[in-house]
Each structure stands twice: as C-alpha cells, then as structure tokens.
C-alpha cells in the first residue's frame, strides 16, 4: 500500500466521484499497477457479492406475521409463539415455494427496477400485438439460428409442447440497453416471454410481481434469463426448469 489514491479508486468504482475526478482516476489507473490491482479486487468481490452471495429474502411467514401485526396492532409478546405456529403450519408451503423458485432473491432497486420495467414494457408491447414475434415457428431449428444473426446471445430454444409450453417464435427486444433474445411460448391462454441476455452480474435472480405480471429470473452459465407472464408461479417455475435442462444438455 504505497499509492495514496486507492480510496479514490474505490470511490470511483462506487460511483461517488464527479466527472472530473473520475476522469483523473481513469487516467491514473492506466499507469498505477497498485490501483489497477485494487480495482480488480473490488470488481471481483462485487461480482461475487451480487451474483453468488445469498440475498436473504423475507419469507412468506414473516411477511404474513408483520402485516397481521400491523393490521391488528398486536405485538412482540405473541411474536415468538406466532412464529412457531406459523412455521409449523406453513413450513410445507414455504419449503415448496422456496424450492420452486430455486433461489428466491429479490431484485435490488435502481438498475434492477430499470431492468424489470424494461422487461414488463416489452412484454406488454408484445401482448398488444404490435411486436410479439420476429420469427414465427414452432421449430427450434428455425428459431435458434435466427437469433445467431439478430441477437447478442444465443439462448437455448426448444418446443415443450408436450409439457404444455408451446414454442411460437422469437424476437429481439432491448433490456437495459442490451439486445436481449426473446423466446416466446404459449401456455393455454397465456403468452410467456423468456428474455435472455449476457449475465453481467447486475440483474439478480428472483421472483417478482409487477403491474399484475410475474417475472422469474435466473442465471445459468454466462446467460441471464427472465421469464415473464401472468401464469401462476409454479407454472413459470416449471418452464424455467425445462429451459435449464435444455441449456445444460
């Protein structure tokens, strides 16, 4: 530790510097090996903290207990008892919900909100019939190569008609400035859009409800997936499992 600017490097990576100071640090980083190393460490830790470390999500039982307490005004003395009761009564359901959604992380704000709202807007546009599919086909051998020429990523594509999720086509949409590949499925009356883009560690896996739609996001390999629909969580999850299997085969 000899360079006196390492704290500035940190502030730069944390988005705390103004444009002038940032430019000066960027220049410094080109020549200072120590600071470049500090940067590499911070970036690696950030990626791990946002991608691998567990984001602890408030469980359904806790959520229910709190909203009940807020409504009823009943408080701490019953809390412990309440927890044991509810954890008994709900543990099965909660465990299923947890297992069903793999890691129930929550999307943190800012960039997450932007991504979520992009995905929802694109989904809405697709439902309004203005832009559902660019390539209409239930044949994976037609849809997959199409992405190679049109999107930045090549997502797994397969028809899960036998499992109730019929492949109807693909298109390209912009999410947070990225050209995302979108695979479109139909499940009964429901349209499901599965967005895929490069896993940059910004978006977080999880289940999220927004404007009456449900999103299930996960990452696998170097891709990030976000399935959106008005289907039930279990159905979304089923589709995500199928896609994971395809991706891994």
């Amino acid at each position: 530790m000899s360079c006196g600017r390492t704290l500035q490097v940190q502030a730069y990576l944390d988005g705390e510097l103004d444009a002038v100071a940032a430019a000066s640090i960027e220049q410094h980083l080109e020549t200072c090996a120590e600071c470049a190393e500090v940067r590499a460490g911070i970036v690696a830790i950030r990626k791990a903290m946002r991608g691998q470390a567990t984001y602890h999500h408030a469980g359904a039982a806790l959520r229910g207990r709190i909203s009940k307490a807020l409504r009823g005004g009943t408080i701490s003395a019953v809390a412990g008892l309440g927890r044991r009761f509810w954890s008994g009564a709900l543990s099965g359901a909660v465990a299923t919900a947890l297992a069903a959604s793999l890691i129930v992380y929550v999307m943190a704000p800012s960039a997450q909100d932007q991504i979520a709202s992009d995905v929802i807007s694109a989904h809405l546009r697709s439902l309004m019939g203005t832009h559902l599919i660019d390539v209409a086909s239930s044949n994976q051998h037609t849809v997959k190569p199409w992405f190679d020429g049109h999107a930045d990523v090549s997502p797994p594509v397969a028809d899960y008609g036998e499992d109730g999720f019929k492949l109807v086509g693909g298109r390209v949409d912009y999410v947070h400035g990225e050209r995302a590949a979108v695979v479109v499925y139909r499940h009964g009356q429901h349209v499901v859009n599965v967005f895929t883009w490069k896993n940059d560690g910004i978006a977080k896996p999880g289940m999220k409800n927004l404007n009456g739609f449900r999103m299930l996001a996960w990452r696998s390999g170097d891709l990030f997936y976000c399935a959106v629909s008005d289907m039930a969580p279990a159905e979304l999850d089923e589709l995500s499992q199928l896609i994971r299997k395809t991706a891994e085969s």
Partner: protein
Amino acid sequence: MDERRRRFEQLVLPHLDAAYNLARWLARASPEAEDTVQDAMLRAFRAFDGFRGGDAKPWLLAIVRNCHYTAMERKKRQMSIPLPENDDDTALVAPDADPEAAAVEAAEARRLNLAVSALPAEFRETLVLREMEDMSYKQIAEVTGAPIGTVMSRLARARALLRERWLANEEAVP
C-alpha cells in the same frame, strides 16, 4: 389510522426484503433475524409519524440495525451468541442442474457466504449495504450512524479482508 397504515405499507413495507437481508447478515441466523425484523417493522410503524418523507429505506434499515444491536446486548448478558448457520439456502442452487456443477457452485457460494459472515460486524454491514443494497456512502452513513469517511475506510477494509480470505484462496485453486 388506516390512512397512516396505507402510507406505511406503500413507503416502508417494500423494503422488507432489504430489512431482512441486513438483519440476516448481521445476526447470521434466521430466527434472530426474523425477530429483529418484526420488532423493527413495528417500531418503524410506531415512529412513522416522525418520518418526514425522503428515502424510507435508510430510515428503516437504521431501525433494523438498532434493533439488532439492542437484541445482541440483551443476548450478551445471557452469553449465547449464534454461530453462523450452515446456510440452507445455498442447497437450493439449481437442484435439477448437473449435480457436479451444482455442487461446485453451491460450495463456492457457501465459501463466499462464510467468508462474508466471518467479517467483523461493522465491515460486514457496510459491505452488505453497498454491494447488496446498492446504497451510496451517504445512505450507508445514515444507516450506520458513521461519518462518510468512516464508511469509506470500513468499505476498504471489508474488501481488503474479503480479498485476502476469499479471493486469494480462490486464485490459488488451479
């Protein structure tokens, strides 16, 4: 009363996950974290009249943090401090995936979780607020009650320690 609760549910309740995540990383055990969050939410509700707009998240997280440390003090007198749990959540990583890859991924996540858990509390909370909640130095200062300069040095220490214990270890693996 109903209007007050509605406003609370609109402004504060959306940060329940952030509250739980912070409590859970501070307590390193689920039951304690749940009690802390429930306690904090009800305190926040009672103190809500004193909340004068602005960002509800740091306001709530400061209450969560206080509740945690108050509970710790109480506990210390009883001499039982929870050890980091062998985190069950990591077992949920991709149960259907290639078992070997899933096991590696789960093991890596567990190793990272343990390394973070092992950081001293003031470094741990600062890192969690910065990297998981994406909070600015100013917001972190608001939650932890530390000056911004202290936030910066804690963050630097947290990262250096984690780098030493986790990243260095990882790089050693071929």
